[in-house]
């Protein structure tokens, strides 16, 4: 393999591979490349090397991302946060067709609560600390809504909303701990 090509391919791989795997993985590729070049033709070995680099990118990126715990935990928490938002929208839509004053209806909050618990339970199954991150996200958004939200929102609703989200994440996280088998990731 031309030195330049080898250097470029190795540079690409070294940007993707986690630091702990960098030396052994690049060494393995180099060793097999040398073996193939000596057994067959250098051009075939070069093509094999290029194929290996291209085919390895997705797997190596996945290792890199999942090895950084806080990124995957935050990603799971953000997905759960979006899921909670979607559930709230659907519940508001359904209750608005039933009740005239649907915007501040305790029924909507009662329906949403167990669904949030369920979402947190599954999020915490994927990443143990996702519930904690989600609770923080909810507290921040509820505080912002309470401070800068519409003044027409009743006080009882603001207070209830302030406690409902974090309480649901707490219940979901506690339920996750009672899972019969398995270690938390």
């Amino acid at each position, binding site marked *: 393999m031309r030195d330049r090509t080898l250097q470029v391919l190795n540079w690409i791989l070294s940007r993707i*591979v986690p630091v702990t*795997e960098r*030396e*052994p*993985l*690049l*060494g*393995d*590729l*180099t*060793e*097999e490349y*040398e073996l193939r070049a000596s057994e067959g033709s250098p051009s075939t070995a070069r093509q094999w090397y290029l*194929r*290996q680099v291209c*085919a*390895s*990118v*997705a*797997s*190596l990126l*996945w*290792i890199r991302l999942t*090895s950084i715990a806080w990124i995957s935990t935050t990603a799971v928490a953000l997905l759960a946060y979006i899921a909670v938002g979607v559930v709230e929208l659907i519940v508001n839509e359904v209750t608005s067709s039933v009740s005239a004053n649907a915007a501040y209806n305790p029924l909507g909050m009662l329906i949403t609560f167990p669904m949030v618990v369920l979402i947190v339970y599954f999020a915490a199954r994927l990443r143990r600390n996702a519930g904690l991150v989600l609770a923080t996200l909810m507290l921040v958004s509820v505080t912002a809504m309470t401070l800068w939200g519409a003044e027409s929102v009743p006080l009882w609703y603001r207070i209830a909303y302030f406690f409902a989200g974090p309480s649901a994440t707490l219940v979901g996280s506690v339920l996750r701990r009672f899972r019969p*088998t*398995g*270690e938390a990731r």
Partner: protein
Amino acid sequence: MKREDALGSLEHIVLLAVMRLGANAYGMTVRREIESATGRDISIGAVYATLIRLESKGFIRSHAGAPTAERGGRAKRYFRTTADGESALRTTHEIIVKLSAGLKGLHHT
């Protein structure tokens, strides 16, 4: 069997290759062992991703070897199966044997 003890198909193949290679199991030899047994040109990235997953499950452990010239002065990382890994292999093998017993078309006559 706990869910975490279950082996995926690639995990199963990689773990078997590591066990077959014994003291000479490292990334390149594992990849070549799988390639010669399955005919699949498996990527080194997929092999490493699986080895890391197996190590995190406690089915294999690794240690660094000495750097060599044909590897551009880079060290090898050797892998060995653990008792848990061998137990997971036995369990998976028993399941396959039970499920395939008596099935026509699976066995050569």
